[in-house]
């Protein structure tokens, strides 16, 4: 064994993770090479001392914020599946209405019930909008993250919430909030405002991870008008390599 080969064995020698064959090869070399022997000893003692350095502990807020994020994410994930739920609710409603007519219920009373349900739904919708908007304005990033999750519970035609989400995408100082806000734009895809704003946001965004999320969103929306902007990203030498690669991929997808 040469001194150079020792370089790749030393860390395992200190950590005692060499297999018996390698261990005896290293020991044989150390027995004859004084330089390596001295080095192994000196550096080995530093290696051991490293394990004695004090371990910094995170503050209790870290745990608290994690569980909040997890809860918000679960709410968001559960609320992101309303489409299917609505289909079933409508189907069940139709079935009930048919059964009602069959059983001789008057059309009038069913209309009254429908009006009450519609009013209740509007009130709940307002409440959700209020919660989402107020959380999105909080100082704490985890509160704003919860606000983004709440936006899944409002009607996708709510322009005020859409505007708040777009503000978060473009201006929120926290990268996670920006990222979550990009995801939350999916339900608002039908609006031409959203499509145009996503293209604009790609130009403004500095964090590569958010840029990639925006590009993915444009592909999901099949937004062919994004091609010139994507082309600009691909040819921008100062842009992140992953982002440029993703933009190239998106261009091919959108063709």
């Amino acid at each position: 064994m040469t001194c150079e080969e020792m370089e790749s064995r030393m860390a395992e020698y200190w950590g005692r993770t060499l297999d018996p064959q390698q261990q005896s090869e290293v020991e044989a070399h150390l027995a004859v090479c004084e330089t390596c022997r001295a080095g192994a000893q000196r550096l080995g003692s530093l290696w051991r001392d490293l394990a004695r350095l004090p371990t910094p502990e995170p503050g209790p807020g870290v745990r608290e914020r994690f569980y909040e994020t997890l809860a918000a994410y679960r709410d968001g994930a559960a609320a992101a599946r309303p489409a299917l739920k609505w289909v079933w609710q409508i189907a069940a409603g139709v079935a009930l209405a048919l059964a009602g007519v069959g059983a001789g219920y008057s059309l009038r009373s069913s209309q009254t019930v429908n009006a009450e349900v519609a009013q209740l739904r509007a009130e709940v919708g307002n409440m959700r909008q209020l919660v989402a908007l107020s959380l999105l304005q909080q100082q704490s990033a985890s509160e704003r993250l919860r606000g983004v999750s709440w936006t899944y519970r409002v009607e996708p035609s709510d322009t005020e919430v859409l505007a708040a989400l777009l503000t978060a995408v473009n201006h929120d100082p926290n990268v996670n909030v920006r990222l979550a806000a990009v995801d939350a734009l999916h339900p608002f895809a039908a609006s031409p405002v959203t499509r145009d704003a996503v293209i604009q946001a790609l130009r403004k965004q500095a964090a590569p991870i958010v840029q990639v999320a925006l590009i993915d969103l444009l592909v999901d929306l099949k937004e062919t008008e994004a091609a010139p902007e994507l082309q600009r990203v691909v040819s921008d030498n100062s842009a992140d390599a992953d982002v440029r690669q993703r933009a190239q991929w998106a261009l091919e997808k959108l063709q």
Partner: protein
Amino acid sequence: MKAVDATDNALMARVSAGDLPKLAVLFERHHRALFRYFVSLNRDRELSEDLVQDVFFRILRYRSTYDPGKAFTAWMYGIARRAGLDRARDRRAEVIGIEAIVERRGEPASAAPGPEERAAKGQNLGLLERALDLLPADKREILVLSRFQEMKYEDIAAALNCEVGAVKVRVYRAVRALEQIYFALEKEKAS
């Protein structure tokens, strides 16, 4: 270590399949180590706490990209590196006054213990800590992963996207560089 890894991987596979509450177990197991990883690299407690949040948020968001055949820790530290780089980029983009930079440079000890703790720890460990702070970031990172996190070399290679052989050599060279700084500091102190 192997058994723990297998459990980590199995847990992450569950999270990936939609069983989100299982992420809490992984958080409890790894958030301190992650915090130490970040503090060792940036010496900023507050920023490191934020970065720990970033990592778990990204794990949640990208849970479906996890490959259960690969070590969870390697995947997690890959994400951690990326989060650190993104944050550094965000910070560079911020307009910060020169005072703020000087202030930041002047407080590398924000994560270090107080004077009493330092005295109890003995001179050598204090010097060693300073030497570690002065080590170039890539060398510090590989020491943190191999020594503090006790990751397997295969997993470090996967997280750093390089060959296992290269990791072993880099660990050795990092300790050698650390020794040079350590002795320079010792000499400076003696003179």
